């Protein structure tokens, strides 16, 4: 599927960290072959992750940055490259499986995975995204809430978007 860039800056993530999460997004919820089957990369899950991390307390931000470094260390030790430079699904998958297999880092795997799943499978929609939403792709209709205006102002990306409008 054709990649679409949503916006040019991040509130919290560096370009390298954003690239890490984009790679993670593609691994956790891969892109489909058509626009009606988006993956986490297309719908802007990395923007959700950036906004979420931006408003986390510093110690939690530090925990995630440390986790990125840890994943890159596993990746370099096993494949000689950082995670976002790995060429195929198998090698990236192997790195995450090692993160899970080591009991001390298991919780970090759940936390990374949760960020992507939250950005993709929740009711969240990125302000830059106007394609098929994940809920629509799943045929999930929610609970009769379509008449209500959603409020995502707890995420910095939506606060900025509202200001721009």
């Amino acid at each position, binding site marked *: 599927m054709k990649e679409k860039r949503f916006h040019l800056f991040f509130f919290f993530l560096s370009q390298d960290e954003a690239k890490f999460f984009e790679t993670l997004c593609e691994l956790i919820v891969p892109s489909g072959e058509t626009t009606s089957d988006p993956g986490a990369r297309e719908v802007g899950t990395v923007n959700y992750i950036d906004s979420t991390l931006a408003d986390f307390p510093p110690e939690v931000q530090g925990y995630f940055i440390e986790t990125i470094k840890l994943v890159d260390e596993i990746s370099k030790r096993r494949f000689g490259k950082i995670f976002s430079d790995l060429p195929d699904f198998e090698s990236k998958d192997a790195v995450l499986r090692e993160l899970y297999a080591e009991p001390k880092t298991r919780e970090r*795997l759940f936390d990374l995975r949760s960020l992507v799943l939250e950005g993709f499978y929740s009711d969240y929609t990125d302000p830059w995204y106007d394609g098929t939403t994940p809920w629509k792709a799943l045929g999930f209709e929610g609970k009769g809430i379509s008449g209500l205006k959603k409020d995502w102002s707890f995420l910095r990306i939506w606060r900025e978007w509202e200001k721009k409008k």
Partner: protein
Amino acid sequence: MARVGEEEIEEMPHDFDVIVVGSGAGGGPVAWCLAQAGKKVAIIEAGGFYTTNDFNRFELLQLRRLWEKIRWTSNFELGLQKEIALGMGRCVGGSTTIFTAVAHRAPDHNFLEWYKATKISNESGEPFSPKDLEPYYEQVERDTSVRRYTEWDEGLKKIDAGFKKIGHPFAPVNAFIDMRCDQSGCLFGCPTEAKRGTLVSYIIPAILQGAEIFYNSTVTRILFSKEGENDKKRPRAFGVEFVNGETMETKRLTSKVVIVAAGALKTPILLMKSGIKELAGETKSIDQIGRNFGANTATLVFGRFQEPLNNWILHPLSGQMEDFSQKERGGFLLEASEVMEGPLGFSEVLVDDDGVPMWGRRHKEILKKYKYYAGIFINIHDSNDGRVFLDPETGREKYYKPITKEDESRFEAARSLCREGLIAAGAQETLNTIYLSHHVQGSCRMGEDRSRSVVDSQCKSHDIEGLYVCDGSVIPSIVDANPSLTIMALSRRLGDHLLKNVLLD
């Protein structure tokens, strides 16, 4: 508001008769009971104050507002492989704002187990029995409109049909739900007030009776003083210190009685952080704080059916199958049906055949069939062999709750039965999930045996005057039912005890 130094406290009037830390199943009923009797009550809650109009179905917002971040056990430090995700509410009403509202009394055999565990007794010194809690169960069931919930969803009807074929039909649960239920879900707060958790049944009525609530406020320590003669000094709780999460202002409130009802994960941590050990010394009962932690550990089995069930539109867990709930008969209770009220929760709990959390293409393909799934919750009768503690090196909160070989056999027997029942019901594929718990219990147990409990049979600390604990942590051993009704009944009982014996003026 009076600001007092610890040394002055004996001479100062108290701000409140009672401070209740926590507004969930343990805190709500006692707060209301005392407030309606005219006592001056303060309720302090770490989470926010959200009410019916706030409970829309936007799960991301509600997860942030109403739920604590999931805590994971650190069983790997014991050389064990399996971890448990521990979930709880963080809002006014506590976990009863986001629970699935199953309201069952503890079965009679649990009371015998409680007595064996801690020698818990009634006012006459006899072993605590079902009849001692019965009047309080009845009061809570009236207060919270408990009824048989018979409006089953399609998923449960199918599951029940399958289980009937294998000789184990489901029965309707009792639920804290009145007739207004529109089946729009439970996990993100009830938008109709049909769910009668403590928020609507006790906290708001308590406020209307004059209780004061401090929300977004985290209690950082209980305040203690010494009292009595030099050689008979016994520590006394006289208030709490808390931080308002919005203003970051630290406040102190004083009271005659402090009731800690922060739940089985947070209550022992608060007692430890308050320096209770340093103050009261290393007594047997102080050493029990955080020990005997039980989780009533759960997992799920989902079945994929041929036709869409749209099972998110329902009150989850409307039926249960208790043929194997007693320890001797298998030690697991089944409840259905459950699909986590949305694709996010469903996506998070799935594991592959090796028990590894799922991601990638197969995971995504399963999610595309979300509307075809119905699931069964398995709760096992596990042991009170866990521990809640502060890591001596890092000061971080930690939780051990081993999944023993016996527990694994229970899970395997339950999973196997679920698969059999789901296939008999027409399911084409079954899926397993992570281990999780929303029924934590037993980290500050009640009883008369000080070497095995933290508080006495009236929930009063063995070591500190004026300090009471009332939440899931006081339950002496795992209840073979969802524990919230039992916690509420114990809370009502504590209110009665305080009015009759402690707050007499």
